[in-house]
C-alpha cells in the first residue's frame, strides 16, 4: 500500500495570489513579504498565512497583525477570501479523485491518497506528475509526501517546501526522520517539546529510542502515541469519505456580551456562515452545538441531537439559541462558537415529519439567499435583525472545521 499526503504550500496565500493573477492584478503577493490576515478593526486581526519572505521576518501564523507589522513595517496585508478557498479546495479534491477513489480529507488544504496498486518508483513518478499538473492547471504549488502510512506520508510532506515530492518509507526513517528536532513530529506541540527537552530528548530519533514505559508514566497514553509516531508506526485506518465531520464557526467578540438578544444575533451571524458552508458541501446535519467562553476564559460546550437532518439556517439557529438559553449562566461572554455535526450527504436525507411546517419554505429561502450572496457578496442580503446594528452580519468564516485527523488520531 502507498499513502500520499498532499499539502498546498501556504494555502491561503497561494490561492489568493493565483486568484489575483487570474484577475489580471499586476502583483504577485508570493514574491514579497505578505500575509493573509483578517480585518484589523476588531480582534480578528491575525495572520492566517504568510509568504516565504514574511517568514524571514519571523512572522508566524496566528500572530496578531499589529505584531506582524512591528516585525516588518512594509508588510503587505491581504484579506482572506473564503469563497475562493472553498472552491480551490473542492476542485483540487475532485481532481485527485481521478487517481484514486481513496481520498481522505485532512483539512481545507491537506488530504491523503491511498493506492493499492503502485510500487515505490511508480508512486514517486505519479506524485511528481500530480504536483506538476496542479501547478500547470490550477496555478499553485503543493508538496507531496509518500510512504506506507499516513503519519510517515505527512512527515515526508513537511521535509522541504515548497513545490517538492519526498518519500519517507519505513527503511528511510533513520536517515530522514530521526535527525529532525522532536517538535517537528506530528502532535508534538510547544509544551511537550519543553518537557521532552528537559528529559534530554531533542530529536525524533531520541524519542524513538526512549523507554516507552517512562513516557507513559509521565505523560500517559499520549506518550505511547508519540513514541509510536517517532518509530514511524501509525495504526490508524484510512477513512475515505465522507470527508467532513463537522462544520463550525466561532468568533471572539469586539465587546463582552451580557445581553441575550445580542448573543442571539451573534449566534445568527455565525450560523449564517456555518449553514452556508454546510450547503456548499451538499451536506446536512443532525447535531448542533454551541460553545461559550466567558471573560474569565471558562469554556462550556453543549450539543443537541435533532430528530432529523437539516441544512436550514433558521432551523439550526433556533435550536442553537434554545441550547444557549438553557446553558448560559449570564456571565459576560468573550467568545461564541457554533458548529454542526452528525453530517450526511444531502442526497441521503430523508424527509422527516418532525420538521416544522415552515422549514421547507425556509430551505428554499436559504438557497435563494446563498445564490444572491455568491453573486453580490456576503452583505448583499442582511436579515432584518442586523440592519442598523453594529454587529457584522456574517461572522467567522475561518475554516476551523474539525476535520478527521485534526484530533490526536491520524
Amino acid at each position: 500500500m502507498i499513502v500520499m499526503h498532499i499539502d498546498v504550500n501556504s494555502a491561503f496565500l497561494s490561492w489568493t495570489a493565483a486568484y489575483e493573477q487570474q484577475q489580471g492584478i499586476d502583483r504577485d503577493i508570493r514574491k514579497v513579504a505578505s500575509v493573509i490576515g483578517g480585518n484589523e478593526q476588531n480582534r480578528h486581526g491575525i495572520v492566517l498565512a504568510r509568504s516565504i519572505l514574511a517568514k524571514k521576518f519571523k512572522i508566524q501564523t496566528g500572530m496578531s497583525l499589529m505584531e506582524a507589522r512591528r516585525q516588518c513595517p512594509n508588510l503587505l496585508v491581504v484579506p482572506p477570501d473564503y469563497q475562493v478557498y472553498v472552491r480551490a479546495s473542492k476542485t483540487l479534491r475532485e481532481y485527485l479523485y481521478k487517481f484514486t477513489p481513496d481520498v481522505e480529507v485532512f483539512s481545507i488544504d491537506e488530504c491523503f491518497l491511498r493506492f493499492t496498486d503502485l510500487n515505490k518508483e511508480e508512486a514517486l513518478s505519479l506524485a511528481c506528475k500530480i504536483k506538476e499538473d496542479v501547478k500547470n492547471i490550477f496555478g499553485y504549488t503543493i508538496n507531496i509526501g509518500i510512504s506506507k502510512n499516513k503519519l510517515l506520508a505527512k512527515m515526508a510532506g513537511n521535509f522541504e517546501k515548497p513545490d517538492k515530492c519526498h518519500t519517507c518509507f519505513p527503511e528511510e526513517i533513520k536517515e530522514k526522520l530521526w535527525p529532525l528536532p522532536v517538535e517537528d513530529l506530528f502532535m508534538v506541540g510547544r509544551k511537550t517539546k519543553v518537557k521532552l527537552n528537559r528529559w534530554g530528548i531533542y530529536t525524533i530519533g531520541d524519542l524513538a529510542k526512549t523507554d516507552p514505559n517512562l513516557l507513559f508514566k509521565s505523560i500517559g497514553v499520549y506518550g505511547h502515541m508519540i513514541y509510536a509516531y517517532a518509530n514511524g508506526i501509525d495504526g490508524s485506518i484510512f477513512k475515505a469519505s465522507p470527508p467532513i465531520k463537522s462544520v463550525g464557526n466561532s468568533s471572539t467578540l469586539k465587546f463582552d456580551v451580557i445581553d441575550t438578544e445580542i448573543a442571539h444575533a451573534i449566534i445568527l451571524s455565525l450560523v449564517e456562515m456555518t449553514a452556508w458552508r454546510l450547503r456548499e458541501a451538499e451536506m446536512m446535519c443532525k447535531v448542533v452545538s454551541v460553545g461559550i467562553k466567558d471573560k474569565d476564559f471558562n469554556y462550556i460546550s453543549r450539543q443537541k441531537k435533532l430528530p432529523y437532518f437539516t441544512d436550514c439556517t433558521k432551523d439550526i439557529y433556533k435550536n442553537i439559541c434554545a441550547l444557549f438559553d438553557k446553558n448560559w449562566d449570564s456571565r459576560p461572554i468573550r467568545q461564541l462558537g457554533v458548529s454542526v455535526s452528525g453530517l450526511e450527504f444531502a442526497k441521503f436525507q430523508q424527509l422527516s415529519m418532525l420538521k416544522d411546517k415552515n422549514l421547507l419554505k425556509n430551505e428554499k429561502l436559504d438557497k435563494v439567499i446563498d445564490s444572491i450572496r455568491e453573486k453580490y457578496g456576503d452583505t448583499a442580503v442582511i436579515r432584518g435583525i442586523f440592519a442598523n446594528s453594529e454587529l457584522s452580519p456574517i461572522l467567522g468564516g475561518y475554516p476551523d472545521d474539525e476535520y478527521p485527523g485534526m484530533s490526536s488520531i491520524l
Partner: protein
Amino acid sequence: MKILNEPIKVMVIFHPNKGLESGKIEPVKFRLEDQVVRIQKIQKIYEENIIGNKRIVFVCQHNGKDIYELKYETDSKTWYLFKK
C-alpha cells in the same frame, strides 16, 4: 497588449449540441466604451482553471490586426475583456 480584465457586454451565439459547430460558444461582437467591436476571427479557444475558477478564453481578431482576449467565467456567467 494590456491586461484589463473588464466586465463587458458581449453578443454571443451558443450553438446547440448537434451538428458541425456542436456546443460551440461564439462571441460575435462586444461593446468597449462607446464603440462596438465586431469579432472577425477567433484565433484560439482554450480553457483555464486557475484555482478551480473556470474561464473559457477566446483570442479574437478585429480589423485584421487588433487582437482582443475575451474570457467567459462559467461560475459567475460573466464576460471579461481580459487583454487588448
